[in-house]
């Protein structure tokens, strides 16, 4: 087993060597511009792009013409929200999203608010899922778009997308989903899930960074978006810019591999994830899983170790790459807004670790990680005045803290 161990696959994934192998010719030999119509260099590049477009479409149950290549999910989110807001401005000016969305959605919504749109940020329940009745209440005939992520990047919970899409449709609103974490991990199907627009990223599913896609529905309804980048009118006018052929080829191959291997891979990852969870929970007291365990990505475990601060825990497990919802890991000094939205309390948000398992993690790695975390949590609890107080039977929520 090689150290350090990478278990932060929600942040990014390594590129699969098989994906990398398909990409390499497109940097050197087949380097043409896919928009060059009058020579074989261009035709070959275009052919490769169209093959990839079909591979992406097949993974999510779409048709190739509904796939628009972008630079990644952040761009796809921006294009979907701003593109719909601009195109449907005459119909309405209201967007509904959720408090636990990725910043690519939240910050785009904030900008749209500045431009005069009204945005509703739905709260989530303690399990991390939105309340469909609240969505039903929030939606009006002025609502042009509902944007709710498929699976959360921190806690891995899977929203009831099919129902959300149905509610949106019934009110004549479009449904966009940031499916970055879900595509390639769980079966996403734009038809069954009632999705009108979906953001897809390459580097979360063993493809390259800097490439992604936006699914834009073409039938019932035919969705139109205003391009946010002006130029040569590539991608059916929706996204100008010379196509990143090697990246797109890689994204396509990554999708094809996920399509072929998802069933088996998800079984293996959920086994490893559950083993990790069980080892931690059997050996340590006061450990809490954040978010529903029922509707969840197979590779996600987000867990709070009460009375232990996340960054100090990361410091103790410095041969393991995971991420913490604690404030101290970022410059903002605010704990994870996603965990706060669950109402878990800031103290538990500060104590959380996100494990993101991936294709290349082994069972031996899981054993090592679990044992190491157990050891460090025990050590830090010996150091923790909060653990001592809790063991003395003091109710920490009743203590008057001198907040600073």
């Amino acid at each position: 087993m090689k150290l350090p161990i990478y278990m932060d696959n929600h942040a990014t994934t390594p590129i699969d060597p098989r994906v990398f192998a398909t990409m390499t010719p497109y940097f050197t030999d087949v380097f043409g511009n896919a928009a060059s119509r009058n020579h074989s260099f261009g035709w070959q590049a275009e052919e490769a792009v169209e093959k990839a477009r079909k591979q992406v479409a097949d993974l999510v149950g779409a048709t190739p013409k509904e796939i628009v290549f972008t630079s990644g999910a952040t761009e796809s989110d921006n294009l979907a929200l701003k593109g719909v807001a601009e195109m449907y401005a005459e119909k309405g000016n209201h967007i509904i999203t959720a408090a636990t969305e990725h910043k690519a959605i939240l910050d785009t919504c904030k900008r749209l608010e500045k431009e005069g749109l009204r945005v509703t940020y739905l709260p989530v329940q303690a399990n991390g899922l939105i309340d469909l009745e609240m969505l039903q209440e929030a939606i009006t005939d002025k609502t042009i778009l509902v944007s709710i992520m498929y699976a959360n990047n921190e806690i891995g919970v899977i929203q009831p997308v099919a129902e959300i899409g149905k509610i949106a449709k019934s009110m004549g609103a479009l449904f966009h989903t940031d499916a970055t974490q879900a595509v390639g991990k769980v079966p996403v199907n734009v038809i069954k899930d009632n999705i009108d627009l979906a953001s897809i990223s390459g580097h979360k599913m063993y493809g390259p960074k800097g490439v992604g896609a936006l699914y834009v529905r073409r039938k019932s309804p035919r969705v139109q978006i205003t391009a946010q980048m002006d130029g040569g009118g590539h991608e059916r006018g929706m996204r100008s810019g010379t196509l990143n052929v090697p990246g797109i080829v890689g994204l396509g191959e990554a999708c094809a591999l996920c399509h072929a291997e998802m069933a088996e891979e998800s079984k293996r990852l959920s086994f490893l994830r559950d083993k990790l969870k069980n080892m931690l929970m059997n050996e340590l007291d006061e450990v809490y899983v954040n978010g529903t365990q029922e509707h969840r990505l197979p590779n996600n475990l987000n867990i709070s170790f009460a009375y232990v601060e996340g960054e100090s825990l990361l410091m103790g497990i410095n041969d393991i790459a995971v991420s913490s919802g604690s404030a101290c890991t970022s410059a903002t000094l605010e704990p994870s807004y996603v965990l706060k939205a669950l109402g878990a309390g800031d103290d538990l948000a500060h104590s959380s670790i996100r494990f993101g398992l991936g294709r290349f993690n082994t069972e031996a790695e899981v054993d090592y990680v679990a044992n190491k975390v157990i050891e460090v949590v025990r050590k830090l609890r010996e150091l923790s005045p909060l653990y001592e107080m809790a063991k003395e039977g003091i109710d920490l929520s009743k203590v008057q803290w001198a907040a600073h």
Partner: protein
Amino acid sequence: MAYSNKVLDHYNHPRNVGSLDKSDPNVGTGMVGAPECGDVMKLQVKVNPDSGVIEDAKFKTFGCGSAIASSSLATEWLRGKTVDEALAIKNTDIVNELSLPPVKIHCSVLAEDAIKAAISDYKKKAEVRTTSAVTA
């Protein structure tokens, strides 16, 4: 974030971890911070009432590595100092010793607050003792 070697050393080998008897009249306890802010420090000093010298100091900290290191260092510095010398310890001394980056300065402030809180608790107890001695 890269930690200085001194922070790593205190994190890996924290000095003077533990608790002193809160009810001991010669022990002063300071507890500062809040769980929702991500750090709580408990710092205790045991003072020789005749000489005013801190004979023992213990800490427990919930917080990031820099918070643990700041309080661990504080206990090291407190031992052998008089109460007045202890009050002269400034957060900037801790920042310099541990090479804390700007985002971690609050950890040193918290450690200074914990020292002050522990000594003020000790002084309060000592006052009560003097007052009750006079009354008796």
